[in-house]
């Protein structure tokens, strides 16, 4: 039943992700036996400590943002509470010249990468669409139209490759976004052009209200990599050590010319989709509670304390840094943003069209009459 047609498969099982997600530190904070021998190496202590610091800051960002929404200082916030390990690792695995392509939910990753936090919130407070210069920290705008940014990431990576730069691009999306046509096109383009891109899917089990089983019946989302001829990997998305190791490996391979890969991080959206959502309509409290035990922060804290890497002083300094961040956010968002309505006409084109000049004049006239 085999044939002489010269169409033997060119790749093979090596593309298949592991049967279970990679985990280095278990939910009790213990080193997973055998995690050192071969495969993925545990990041060193300093790196884990830095990751933990960012986890704590990230959690604080999520909490503070939630509070600011409740106080009416921000219109909407898609919380990444529970997903901090994925987001922190996404920020830490990249070099300065690398690019990050985040979604609306990846605020913690964007801030961990160093983008000025109040600017990050311009989108969500409603004063402009994006409040930071993407070139400054090589962080693209937070994307809302699902999966569309993955193609931009491929383009940035392709351009870098053509220019001979050794930039790597990390592109983020959710489990729901994997169903979009653009996900497919992006992964295929990345594979065919063999660009230095890594795709990280934060599988948080839900796309708003839709659970994963209505999104996909594939063995795993990482298995989608097979169809593009790139490696797929699965990782415990609440184990920051594991995410760092797996992403680090994928980024390094990409940098060395080994091409793109897909990483699926298993995690959970602990809060509603956004403050506007009512999660009780589609999932049970019990389900949510079960994930509490897998919290990415407490696990790292347990591990680092147990390993003697986290002193009480260090813990206090991290807590202070998180409070600093919260204060910066509060101060920034409590101040009213400076709004200039005529700026609406300023960035549509490099050179304003005659039509926009007329329209700006109309608005200016209205505003001046209002003032008068």
């Amino acid at each position: 039943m085999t044939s002489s047609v010269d169409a033997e498969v060119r790749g093979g099982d090596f593309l298949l992700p592991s049967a279970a997600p990679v985990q280095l530190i278990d939910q009790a904070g213990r080193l997973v036996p055998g995690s050192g021998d071969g495969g993925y190496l545990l990041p060193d202590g300093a790196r884990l400590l830095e990751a933990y610091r960012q986890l704590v800051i990230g959690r604080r960002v999520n909490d503070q943002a939630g509070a600011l929404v409740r106080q009416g200082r921000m219109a909407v916030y898609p919380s990444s509470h529970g997903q901090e390990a994925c987001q922190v690792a996404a920020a830490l695995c990249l070099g300065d010249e690398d690019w990050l392509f985040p979604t609306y939910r990846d605020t913690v990753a964007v801030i961990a990468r160093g983008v000025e936090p109040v600017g990050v919130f311009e989108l969500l407070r409603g004063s402009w669409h994006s409040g930071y210069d993407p070139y400054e920290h090589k962080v693209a705008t937070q994307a809302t139209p699902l999966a569309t940014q993955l193609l931009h990431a491929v383009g940035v990576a392709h351009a870098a490759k053509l220019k001979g730069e050794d930039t790597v691009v990390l592109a983020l999306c959710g489990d729901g976004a994997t169903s979009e046509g653009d996900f497919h096109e992006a992964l295929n383009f990345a594979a065919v052009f063999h660009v230095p891109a890594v795709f990280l899917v934060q599988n948080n089990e839900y796309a708003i209200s839709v659970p994963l089983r209505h999104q996909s019946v594939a063995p795993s989302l990482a298995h989608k990599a097979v169809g593009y001829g790139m490696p797929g990997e699965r990782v415990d998305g609440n184990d920051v050590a594991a995410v760092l190791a797996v992403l680090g490996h994928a980024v390094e391979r990409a940098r060395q010319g080994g091409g793109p890969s897909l990483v699926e991080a298993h995690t959970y959206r602990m809060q509603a989709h956004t403050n506007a959502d009512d999660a009780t309509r589609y999932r049970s409290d019990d389900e949510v509670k079960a994930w509490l035990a897998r919290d990415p922060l407490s696990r790292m804290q347990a591990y680092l304390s147990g390993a003697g890497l986290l002193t009480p002083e260090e813990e206090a300094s991290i807590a202070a840094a998180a409070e600093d961040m919260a204060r910066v956010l509060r101060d920034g968002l409590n101040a009213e943003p400076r709004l200039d309505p005529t700026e609406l006409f300023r960035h549509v084109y490099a050179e304003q069209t005659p039509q926009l000049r007329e329209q700006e004049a109309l608005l200016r006239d209205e505003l001046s009459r209002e003032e008068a």
Partner: protein
Amino acid sequence: MTAVTEAPAATAGQQLTFAKALTTALADAMEADPRVVVFGEDVGPLGGVFRITDGLTRRFGEERCFDTPLAESGIVGMAVGMAMNGMKPVVEMQFDAFAYPAFEQVVSHVAKMRNRTKGHVSLPMVIRIPYGGGIGGVEHHCDSSEAYYAHTPGLTVLAPATVADAYAMLREAIEYPDPVVFLEPKKLYWSKDTVELDALRAPGEPRIGRAVIAREGTDATLITYGPSMPTALAAADAAAAEGRSLQVVDLRSLVPFDDETVTAAVRSTGRAVVVAEASGFASVASEIVARVQERCFHSLAAPVRRVTGFDIPFPAPKLEKYHLPGVDRILDAVDDLQWED
């Protein structure tokens, strides 16, 4: 006979939101016709992000109202196939800008299938799109996309503005033999009105292709639809206070277009302003201006003016009020209609 214990008479009017009118229309249509199925993103247990499909899965089961994978081209494309095979799909696009991934399916298939097949294959389906601004939504959540659809031959494009029309036009759209793009002004979802549901449920005059005079007036005509309708009415109120009588035409149906009503209205006043949220360039508002000047040229005392969104991407929430047609801007345009002539 103790009147107090009696339920209100079935024909009595009842207060309904625009959103609830739509939900009721969907439920009634599903009740009336087993071929009607509802699907899209989050329309199942959640009831949609605007809760328009609230309760439908519970009441009609998962086979009649269900969530799909997150892919708009997939949703519309699957609806095409289901319509081909005896169903009447009503699909929801979660927001205006998130209907764009389905654009090829809409333009190349939904709009053309009847024509391509010389009428052998018709597509009785409805694409519901919550659309427009005014709700403080972030980017990509406030587009007014009607021009894309209205320009595409083969589509029927509706934009109700009242609670009664929300109900009656959605029912009519579902029963229509051709595909309908049903534009729901998001900012009107929470508007309320007293309507007689039973009267609306009874067979009545068609509304597709029929504009209505939403307010009588003699000095000038405001032509509008969807989210701008209440704004136009408010402008007419304000103008009345200043002694100017403005007529308001609510188009309701962008395609087919009711030339008869619009032309008669403009001829009766001799002056017209078109009001619409969408950016003005090559828009439905442009079309209305073009048609009115073609048909009413000799009745016009002044050029037909437009009050539309600017030709800019929809602004961030805190700036949208500068972009959207408001009462003052409409009154300015009316003032401009060369009254001194």
